[in-house]
């Protein structure tokens, strides 16, 4: 048996390298996010946002941009026979789940490094809220990554791949979005960041991450059997 740590690092490095070479997901996600901001600017007819409107625009955009990446997460595995290789390799299969979720976290962080500053430039009066926002973003990324990896690995083996991911993922991440926007709303409030129930929302995010990481880890084996 190859140690899980080695296998994890190898799969993660393979994913990041192939993304860097092909640039399949990341540019599309970033472009989508920026375009969505422009659409919100005209759809809402606002040049600056604050409070619930700002957090709604930010999270809706990030979520839909994430769906683009989640859709493509396992496509290479399926088309190039990566699943068979993983099944043949002497490694614990749950490692694939961990490595893919980690790759998705890297994509999401990269997306946010582009999209959040642009969001701040477009719509926010001051950038003071961005510091504490990092904690919310990271916890939400973790949750999106574990649920997204689980759904993506199921959807990729079906006929309606591009349809299934948004269909099943969106209701599943509603609690995540409730908690993330609940924490973000006072942060982006007019007149400086507030911290109303900030800790509670972070705890809900953490609980969501923990539960779905455990569920994903427990059931992922069954998705690879054939």
């Amino acid at each position: 048996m190859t140690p899980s740590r080695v296998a994890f690092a190898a799969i993660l490095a393979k994913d990041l390298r192939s993304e860097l070479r092909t640039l399949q997901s990341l540019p599309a996600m970033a472009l989508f996010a920026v375009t969505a901001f422009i659409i919100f600017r005209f759809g809402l007819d606002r040049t600056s946002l604050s409070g619930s409107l700002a957090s709604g625009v930010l999270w809706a955009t990030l979520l839909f941009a994430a769906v683009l990446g989640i859709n493509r997460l396992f496509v290479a595995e399926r088309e190039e026979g990566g699943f068979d290789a993983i099944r043949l390799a002497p490694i614990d299969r749950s490692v694939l789940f961990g490595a893919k979720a980690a790759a998705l976290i890297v994509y999401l962080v990269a997306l946010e490094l582009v999209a959040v500053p642009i969001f701040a430039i477009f719509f926010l009066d001051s950038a003071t809220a961005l510091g504490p926002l990092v904690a919310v973003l990271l916890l939400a990324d973790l949750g999106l990554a574990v649920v997204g990896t689980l759904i993506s690995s199921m959807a990729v083996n079906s006929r309606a791949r591009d349809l299934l991911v948004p269909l099943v993922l969106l209701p599943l991440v509603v609690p995540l979005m409730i908690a993330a926007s609940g924490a973000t709303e006072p942060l982006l409030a007019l007149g400086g960041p507030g911290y109303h129930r900030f800790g509670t929302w972070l705890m809900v995010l953490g609980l969501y991450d923990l539960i779905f990481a455990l569920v994903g880890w427990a059931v992922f084996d069954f998705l690879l059997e054939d």
Partner: protein
Amino acid sequence: MYGKGLKPLSIATVVAFAVGFSLVFFYAPLDADQGFIQKIFYLHVPLASTALIGFVVGGIFAILHLRTDNNKWDAYSYVAIHISVIFGVGVLITGAIWAKASWGHWWVWDEPTLVSFLIVFLLYCTYYPFRYAIEDRDRQARYASVFAVTAGAFVPLNFLAVRMAQQLVHPRVFATSEGGLPSSMLLTFLVCFVAVALLWVTLVKFELTAKSASGQVNRLRRALDAPGPTGSSRIAPEVS
């Protein structure tokens, strides 16, 4: 095999409903605030609880399927979720009628239970297109079980998050200022709850019996080299 006991179960369900509705209309007192419309509570709340418990039970059957690799449990899980989704439609309709009558709107966003139920219902509605999109039967069963387990874990978490998102929680029938239902209402509620739960069990058993009968017919047809039935369902699991 599945048909055994279906008849007494159906009779028990009918009797429980008869007793329950008699209690609702002739025994339970009129609610002081809401009047007659409050009686929908005796149908709405048992339906909702049964549907939610049914979703979780579907998840437990799914765990059994994954552990034992016996396709029987996949059929149980499918039928449990199927009947619960049908109950869910009833919950949303009775809930909207109740909301319209007592709050004046068909839909109320600041009622956490309503919103959570809608989200859970929507998630389980995606169970059907999800199954339908996977061709191979074994893989379909396995993936559906994984879905059912994940969604079962999602139900309590979702209720927690939606409830926390509300600034203030509406008073419920259970929690009046005196704290709790009068005993006559509680008794009526419990009888109705038993009736609805029995209905759920009966319907689940009914559907399993039907599936097992049609599975048997299919196997006999195949043994005789007769042409199979046209238009049979591709998402419903076969029961042996």
